[in-house]
């Protein structure tokens, strides 16, 4: 090696590298909170709905920001440098998981923040413990965009929202032990609000949210209430959604399986031929025939999906096309999780009851 050249090169490199520690101090001083004596946890979430739940659970002890917006397809968010920078100062990175936000890994890795890498306490997979639906029995690409761990749109079942909140509360409690009691109390309040919103206050007082949740998950709530002569006491979203039970509703993508399971409507077919693959003309005709044969009143899709096929089918069959947000935020006029579920249930019931 030419010694002179090498020395010159190293000297030049050191000029580049010298500012790094200084920059680190100034950057960290400005953006990154310390972990000792935490005043508030810095939290980033992949989805706004997770930010909303985290806010309910964390209350005044956290500061939270979502990396995506509610009108973006959560599968395909661009992991830009701005998102990486947002994640750089975070103590907690919350994702739904189940391979929904593959871009999240790129953001976490690009942030250079060791606290939020996979396996660290600051990396929270909120869907842990959720009983996933549509677990594929065979994993092949021939089936389209398959999620190997099951359908990831879990938050559209309010009972799953309680699990997401529980996982978030546990993470906050570990990372910020002095406020663990507050997080647990906030979690209990959130769970109670979900129970009341889902079953109605009277029934929750009479039976208890835990038991109602178990009965509902087991598909035995209606039967139980009939046995006990308490059917009239059912309130909340479930009472409101009564007209949906057993109704066939066509969806664009496999987005609404958890919503359908909780509120009892059927999804006989998706407009997409296979997950992530736009419908061919043949598939569109297949859906058209099914809508007519089964008397489908409603076509439901997430706000970020293309409306071309849905509009065509609605026009041909007279079904209502509902293009609704599945996440929360000002951009879509949905302030929080409760408003999100209110909106979905109300729009579906309205569509089903006003069909000619």
């Amino acid at each position, binding site marked *: 090696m030419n010694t002179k050249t090498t020395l010159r090169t190293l000297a030049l490199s050191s000029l580049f590298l010298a500012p790094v520690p200084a*920059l680190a101090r100034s950057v960290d001083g400005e953006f990154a909170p310390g972990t000792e004596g935490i005043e508030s946890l810095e939290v980033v979430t992949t989805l706004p709905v997770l930010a909303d739940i985290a806010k309910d659970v964390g209350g005044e002890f956290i500061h939270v920001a979502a990396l995506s917006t509610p009108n973006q397809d959560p599968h395909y968010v661009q992991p830009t*440098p701005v998102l990486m920078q947002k994640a750089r100062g975070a103590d907690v990175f919350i994702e739904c998981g189940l391979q929904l936000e593959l871009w999240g890994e790129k953001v976490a890795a690009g942030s250079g923040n060791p606290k939020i890498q996979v396996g660290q306490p600051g990396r929270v997979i909120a869907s842990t413990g959720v009983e996933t639906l549509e677990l594929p029995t065979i994993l092949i690409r021939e089936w389209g965009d398959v999620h190997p761990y099951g359908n990831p749109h879990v938050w559209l079942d309010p009972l799953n929202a309680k699990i997401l909140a529980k996982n978030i509360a546990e993470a906050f409690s570990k990372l910020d032990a002095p406020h663990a009691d507050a997080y647990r109390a906030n979690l209990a309040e959130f769970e109670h609000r979900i129970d009341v919103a889902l079953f109605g206050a009277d029934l929750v007082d009479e039976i208890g949210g835990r038991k109602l949740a178990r009965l509902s998950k087991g598909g035995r709530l209606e039967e139980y209430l009939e046995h006990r002569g308490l059917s009239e006491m059912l309130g909340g979203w479930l009472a409101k959604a009564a007209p949906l039970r057993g109704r066939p509703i066509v969806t664009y993508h496999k987005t609404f399986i958890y919503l359908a399971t909780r509120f009892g409507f059927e999804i006989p077919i998706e407009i997409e031929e296979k997950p992530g*693959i736009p419908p061919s003309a043949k598939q569109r005709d297949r859906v058209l025939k099914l809508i007519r044969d089964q008397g489908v009143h409603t076509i439901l899709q997430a706000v970020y999906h293309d409306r071309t096929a849905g509009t065509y089918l609605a026009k041909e069959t007279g079904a209502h096309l509902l293009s609704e947000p599945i996440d929360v935020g000002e951009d879509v006029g949905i302030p929080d999780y409760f408003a999100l579920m209110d909106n979905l249930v109300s729009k579906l019931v309205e569509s089903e009851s006003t069909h000619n």
Partner: protein
Amino acid sequence: MHSHAASGLAFTLAILATAPSAHGQASDSETDSTAPPTVQELLQRIERLERARDADREDFEFELEGLEDDLSRLESKAGVQTQRSNVFNPGITVFGNFLARADDQSVHLDDDPTAPRIDDQFNLREFEVDYRASIDPWTDGVLIATYESETPGEANATIEEGYVIVKKLPVLDSAPAGLKLKMGRFRPNFGRFNQIHTHDLPQPTYPRALGTFLGPEGYIRDGVEGKFFLPSPSESQTIEATVGLFDGGELPIAPGESASNLSVLGHVKWFKDLGKGRDVELGVSGLQNDSDHRVVGLDGTYKWKPFEGGEWKSFLVGGEFFQADLSEAGLDSSPMGYYLWSQYQFDKNLYFGVRYYHAEDLTDASMSTDTYGAYLTFYTTEFFRLRFGMEHSTSDIDEIDGRNTALLETNFIFGSHPVEPYWVNR
């Protein structure tokens, strides 16, 4: 589960305890009224107790069945909750890239008349296996083995990239300024297209301008590189810097240089989120092989990808400029080159793009080549792509001047495709 059973039992005991008490109260009241209970009253009491007992039994039955359901669910879910694992195997992706070309004149490899002809041929030009995994809490590893072919039937097996990224050190809780240290063999952070592999290119081939200065497949070298954030003026902007040291030589701008003369690389990138799915990025790069062989680059990209329906429509426009500063006999002192390109997405699977590039010859800057091209890309899914392109070149080099080329590219991927650079749509 135990608490449910216990509360149920407590509830039953409470009912049973209440029943005699109620009976006792009734007896007291009846005693007060000095009248013994009638048969009718006793029958009613019995009926009330039976109803309470039946309701309680139903409660227990539901409890038991619920527990049974819970148990079966837990049993069926055993082992399902692991959402990530690369303990036993890394994430593996296989890429295949096939190119067919038709030309209206003979074309030689690297436009060297003594090299083999490549016109009017099919060629599996790349077959790549990508392995990646976390190595331990501090490092991630990537290994990309490539079988690449410039002429049909002749191929080289190489390690295109093999590196570790050090995310933090055992002695530090967190890396300063988000520093990520990359060590091994990889594509150094120079400009735009040099960062991406052939199969991720939004065009059928690398632009000639890039190939002229950095090599036909881009600049790939062994070395070490650090990437970190600089303070940014606002939340919607970032400034990232990269510095690197690499083995020297083996570059078109420094053909005869030794690998032992370390090259120095610097790159600064400014990114701004303009809102509503629009962003702009500008970069400046510099690479010094030694004081006699340097190249600088400028790059810019604007992207629009709306939030709603962003998978169906998008627009990209960008360009990159190269200027070399050379002091070597046989090379021109300051050759330059650049390319401009744009791409519009018509629907989920269909893209149309155009590009133009200008490249001066390194040995004689007065000799340049200009190429105009258009291409249409169709994806069945992100795992399979067809691309058709047409190009026309004018050049001061006779072998290239007036050349018309049609290109048909097929790209296929199996395995867990890693996410592409954020500005590449597919």
